[in-house]
Every structure is written in structure tokens, then in C-alpha cells.
């Protein structure tokens, strides 16, 4: 990850000043004081002087940026509980950038990526976004995993008139009722809930269903939406439960599932939750015909870690190696190949979200820089709004609010360790296997 180059000169200045007091003890005597009157001043000096020096060093004009590189910023959870997906998004974005640079960059100019970690805290996301916008001066932002963080980032980007293409934002509140002409996203919750509901009501046709979700905003909205749509379809829902992320055990919950015997359990939990839940389902031999979860199941690494216990589980994904928008098979194959070669592991749906969002931004930048115009946030945003790309994950076009017009996930089932698309029928590659 490329980043701020602390020039050698400023580093030397900094070190010199920090060690000055040790080499010149007389210097300390100048500021040594009597206890009462002086200790406050003494401590202020010892504190403020190094601080001021460090700050001046930071504030020095940034040298070392090749003047003609195009700078893109991303803010993702690179550490913390969400780091798995944050890093996957980062890798997808990096892949898109490296592809563009390998083909000569944009109009001959190289594209540089500046990554920051938001630690899943909104204030850190805000700080780092400010850093990218003001100190590093990026022309576009991309990435982001959780809506609580994407929201503040999008507001900051709007304030600075910089376009932001969010890779994994889902909730309605980010585009509903707000007009942010600089915010775009390649995914939305409806593209998950609608296929899921249609699949359940058309193909599973359960008499009763259990809904489980986690106490995060995205999963809660999902849980409410699914419950509403299932009730509307006349499905009985004896169990609706919310659990906190980080729960280590589901046996008591599964006891309830055993008691009510629903035909399907829909879980809005995430990857780690399924690792525990699916294993316990199997261990305790719960008679459950179907287990469906939109997040965390349709990942090759899930199948690898769970092994046999993942057989028959249903998941959703926007893309996977082998599952892509009809007509983009060749592109998918070459992407998978290049990615595996570069990172040593196969890409997955989250990676592809990062890749798609970066591709969109890069394409818009390219179009905006035609004719040698100065790259401005408004020009890039305009290009984004009129974008119409066929990418492996989706037919990408943004509507007036920044939502993707054609984002629909597909339902897959894990059969013999592979993903078989079972819904929608026009993309299905197999039949549902009974468990």
C-alpha cells in the first residue's frame, strides 16, 4: 500500500529535535524550574515543544508525489472483527487498479491507491477520510463495508465534492430521503431481500419459517424486511430472534427450533456465526429441511472450513467463480486466474464488490479526463451517473439516488462442495437437493 512518504529531510529534522535535550543538557537547565511556580511551565515545555515539532513535521508540504499520478482513496475495516471482508474489498479494489495500470494507466497517468483503516469506528472513518481528502488530496473514494461508516464518509465526500463509490453499502437510509449527488453504491439491500423472498415463497413454499438476525443495523433491517415479506405471503413465523454478534453458542436457540419444527431457518448472521450454527445444527441432528443465509455461506472458504457440514446449505451471492452475469464468463475466468496468481487465493463475492466499485470509479475518471480537462469531482460524478457497464457481477448503472439499477443476487445451494445456482430460474444451474 502506497502512502505518505516521510521525506528523509523531515525525518532528520524530527529526530534531531527530539534528541536535542539529551545532547545539550544545558538546554534543559534553561527550562528547569522551581517546583511550584515552574513545574507547570516546565511540563508544558517538555510536552509542547516535541509536540509542536512533530506537528510541524506533519504539516510540512508533502513532497514525493509524482505530480502526474491519479490518487484514489479507500477506507475499509482493515483490522478488527470486520477485517476479513474489509481486506477482501481492499484486494478487489487493488486488483482493478493494477489492471488499469498494467494497461498504461489513465491517459498515461498511473493510478495510486491510498488505503486507510477505519477500525469499525465512525470517528476514525471520518478522520481518515478527512486525511485522504485534505492531506493526500484524492480525486475519488471507494470501499467501505458497514453502513454506519459509509454514511459519515459519504457526507464528508459530498462536503468536499468528491465522488464516493461504496463497495458494500446496503441500507435504505443511505439513499432514501437524502440527496447526495456524490454518493454511489454497487449494492443495495433490496437486491438481497427480493431474490431471497421470491425464492422462499416460490420454491421452498414453507408452512412455517424461523427468522434469526444479528443486532447490527444491516442485519436488523434485513430481518424486518424478510419477516414482513414472509408474513405477507402467508408463512407462519413462530420464531423471530435477534442475537448479538460474538455469541458463542446457539444450543438453546436450536432447542426452540427443534420444538417448533419450522420448514426453513433464515439467518441474517455473518460468516463466523454460521460456522458455529451450522455445526451445531448438524451435531444436534436438528430436523431442519432448509437453512438459508444471505451473508457468509456462499464463500469458498466457508465450504473449505466447514467441510461436510456445509452440504445442502443455501446462501446468496452476487458473484462467485463460475457464477456471473450471462455473457461475462470469459472475463470472469480471466479475473479469477489473475487474482489467484496475484494473491494466492481465489476471489469471492466480497472481492468482486470491491473490484466492481473500483472499476466504476476508474471508468468514470477515464471518461472525465478525456480532452485533457482538469479532473474535478463534479466531472467524475457526472460520468458516474451516466455509466452503463456490463461487469461480471452486475449490469452496472446508477439511478438518481446513487443506487444500482440492476443489482440482484442469486440463491445458491452447496452441493458436493460446489455452489449450484437454484434461483432465479433463468440463471439456475441445478435443482434443489433435499437434505
Amino acid at each position: 500500500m502506497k502512502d505518505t512518504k516521510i521525506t528523509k529531510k523531515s525525518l532528520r529534522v524530527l529526530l534531531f529535535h527530539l534528541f536535542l535535550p539529551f545532547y545539550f543538557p544545558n538546554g534543559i537547565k534553561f527550562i528547569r524550574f522551581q517546583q511550584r511556580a515552574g513545574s507547570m511551565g516546565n511540563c508544558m515545555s517538555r510536552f509542547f515543544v516535541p509536540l509542536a515539532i512533530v506537528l510541524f513535521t506533519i504539516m510540512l508540504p508533502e513532497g514525493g508525489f509524482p505530480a502526474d499520478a491519479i490518487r484514489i482513496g479507500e477506507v475499509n475495516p482493515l483490522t478488527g472483527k470486520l477485517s476479513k471482508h474489509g481486506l477482501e474489498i481492499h484486494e478487489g479494489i487493488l486488483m482493478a487498479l493494477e489492471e488499469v495500470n498494467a494497461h498504461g494507466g489513465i491517459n498515461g497517468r498511473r493510478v495510486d491507491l491510498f488505503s486507510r483503516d477505519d477500525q469499525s469506528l465512525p470517528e476514525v472513518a471520518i478522520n481518515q477520510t478527512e486525511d485522504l481528502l485534505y492531506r493526500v488530496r484524492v480525486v475519488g473514494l471507494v470501499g467501505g463495508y458497514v453502513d454506519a461508516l459509509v454514511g459519515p464518509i459519504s457526507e464528508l465526500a459530498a462536503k468536499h465534492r468528491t465522488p464516493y463509490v461504496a463497495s458494500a453499502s446496503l441500507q435504505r437510509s443511505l439513499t432514501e430521503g437524502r440527496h447526495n449527488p456524490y454518493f454511489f453504491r454497487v449494492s443495495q439491500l433490496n437486491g438481497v431481500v427480493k431474490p431471497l423472498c421470491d425464492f422462499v415463497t416460490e420454491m421452498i413454499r414453507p408452512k412455517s419459517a424461523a427468522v434469526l438476525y444479528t443486532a447490527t443495523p444491516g442485519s436488523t433491517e434485513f430481518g424486518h424486511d424478510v419477516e414482513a415479506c414472509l408474513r405477507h405471503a402467508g408463512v407462519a413465523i413462530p420464531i423471530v430472534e435477534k442475537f448479538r454478534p460474538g455469541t458463542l453458542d446457539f444450543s438453546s436457540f436450536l432447542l426452540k427450533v427443534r420444538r417448533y419444527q419450522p420448514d426453513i431457518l433464515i439467518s441474517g448472521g455473518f460468516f463466523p456465526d454460521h460456522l458455529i450454527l451450522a455445526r451445531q445444527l448438524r451435531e444436534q441432528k436438528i430436523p431442519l429441511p432448509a437453512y438459508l443465509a444471505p451473508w457468509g455461506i456462499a464463500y469458498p472458504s466457508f465450504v473449505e472450513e466447514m467441510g461436510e457440514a456445509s452440504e445442502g446449505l443455501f446462501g446468496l451471492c452476487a458473484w462467485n467463480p463460475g457464477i456471473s452475469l450471462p455473457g461475462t464468463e470469459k472475463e470472469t475466468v480471466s479475473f479469477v486466474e489473475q487474482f489467484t496468481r496475484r494473491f494466492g487465493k481465489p476471489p469471492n463475492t466480497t472481492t468482486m464488490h470491491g473490484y466492481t466499485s473500483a472499476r466504476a470509479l476508474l471508468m468514470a475518471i477515464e471518461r472525465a479526463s478525456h480532452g485533457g480537462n482538469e479532473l474535478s469531482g463534479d466531472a467524475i460524478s457526472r460520468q458516474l451517473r451516466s455509466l452503463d457497464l456490463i461487469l461480471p457481477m452486475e449490469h452496472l448503472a446508477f439511478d438518481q439516488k446513487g443506487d444500482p439499477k440492476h443489482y440482484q443476487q442469486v440463491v445458491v445451494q452447496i452441493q458436493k462442495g460446489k455452489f449450484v445456482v437454484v434461483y432465479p430460474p433463468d440463471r439456475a444451474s441445478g435443482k434443489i437437493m433435499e437434505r
Partner: protein
Amino acid sequence: MRISKPGLSSFLVLVVASVFIAWPVFSTGSGIYYRVLSLACLYGALALSWNILALTGSISLGHAAFFGLGAYGSALACQYWHWSPYVTIFLGGIIGCLYGLVWHLTFRKLRGAAFALATLASVEIPKVTIDNWDRVTSGSLGLIGIEGLPPVRLWSLTLDVDRNLQVQCFFLVLFALSVLYIHVKAISSRWGWAIRAVREDETAASTLGVDVLRIRLQALMASAFLTGLGGAIYAHLMGSVEPALVFGLHFSALPLVLSIFGGRYLALGPFLGALILYPADQLIFHSWLPAGHAALYGLVMVITILFFPHGIGEWVQQETKSV
């Protein structure tokens, strides 16, 4: 031979402080420094508030309860009753204070590790309640669109606290300085001496006539009020809150860590800890190591405590006041 030159050091301090404050005015795009400084002051205030209670010997692991209650109290009052955020912030503080009272009534007899555990557990009660009470608090969805702090009109000046980062920074510096004042009083005033006596030996203190329970209550309520205030300010600054965020361990652990890092028994200690570590982390560590900054953070902490067991304030203040 010691040469005491009072004039020189104060002058140096003045020069440094004025350049430090004035510089960003001349450089465009300096919003980030103000933002980081604002948050550093907020964390400093939280660390100072935590320490006010810790000075009585009660180490609390559950200050996030006050923080979260302050945040939600203020945000909900703003949303439902449409009061000005400046009023609801104090309401948030008072709610925090009331929960502190609950702590006092139930944990009165607890000390040491038992007290720490009880405080840790007590965060869950408001957190889960707010998380499940969908109709009133939007539950897990969190509150979004919380009104920012409205502009203040002073004679002919309009200070836009929410949008103008410089003003926001001054506002938070003011807040931190007020908390600092209370903290200084908690260390070096008559009240402070009573607190110290309670910390050292409760039995001896009560034989000297110190009302141990009352001192603990006062410290607890001050600490809870200020932390609740900080939480409310945070909510209005960020514009959105979630139960998992404002009641999270982050806001229980960080004031504690910053306080000990900076020096628990020094008047400036916790504030110093926040002012040093937070900007260093946000401005330097993050840009050096986007994915590994936490390791640097951890390393700094380990090394500092190994060499300065009484906090980094020990070095700055040059002598360690044996408190």
C-alpha cells in the same frame, strides 16, 4: 546549580502555543488537525472523568454505560421533544449521573475486583434495553440524523459549532479544560485530600472524620455526569449512534488506558495521555501502517509503561509526585 528562569519558559510556552494554534489558520485543508484535536480533547475529557472516580480507589470497567446513556438521552430528547442540543447535552449528563446514583446504591459495599466486575456487567443493562426497545430508540438500527450543535451567536459573531471545524475544536477544548478544572480540584483541594484519604485507607479516613460514602458518591456522580456529557457531545458530533458503538468496550477501555498511560496521579496526566496518543495514532500511525497501526499503538503502550510506570506524564513533569 539550578538557574531558575521563570520568564523564559513561560515565553517559550506562549510562543509554541500561539504558533500551534495559529498555524492551521494559514494552511488550507487543515480540517483534519482540528478534527483530530477535537476528538483528542473529547477522549481527554473522558479519561479525566474516569480518573476522578479512579482516584477514590474504585476502578470502573463500565464507564461506557454513562457514555451511552448520555448519548442516547441527548439524542432521544432532541428527537422527541425538539429541545436545543445544548440543553439536551446536559440532560444526557444528568441521565448518566442518575445511573451513577444507581451504581452507588447497589454497589456501595463492593470494592476492588468485585466492583470492577459489577461495573462491567452494568453496561449490559441499558445497552440491551435500548437495543431491544425498537419503538422508542430504533433498537439495533441506531439513531441517525441526530441534530448537530446549533450555531451560537455572540454579539456580531456567529459561531457555527457544527460546520466550522475550528469553532468545534475550541468548543471541545473548552469542554476538556472544564473537566480538567474539576480533575485538578479532585487532586489538589480539600476535597482532593479527602479522596486521597479514602483511596489510601477507608477505615483510617473515616476515623479522621471523612464521610467515606459521601466522598465516593460525589466522585461517582461527577464522573458519571461528565462522561454522560461527553457521550452526548459525541452523539451530536457524529450525527448517528448505535447501541453496540456507544455502549461498547472501546469507551470503557480507552479512557482507562489513556489515563494510566498519561499518569493517573497527575493533574494533567489523563489529558496528556489522550493528547499524545490519539493524534499520534490518527495522524502518524495510520498513514505509516494502514493495516498495522494497532501494533504500533500497542508497542508504544507496552514500552511506555515499562519505562514510565506512573505514566508518561512522569517524564513531562520531570518529578514523580508520590501521591
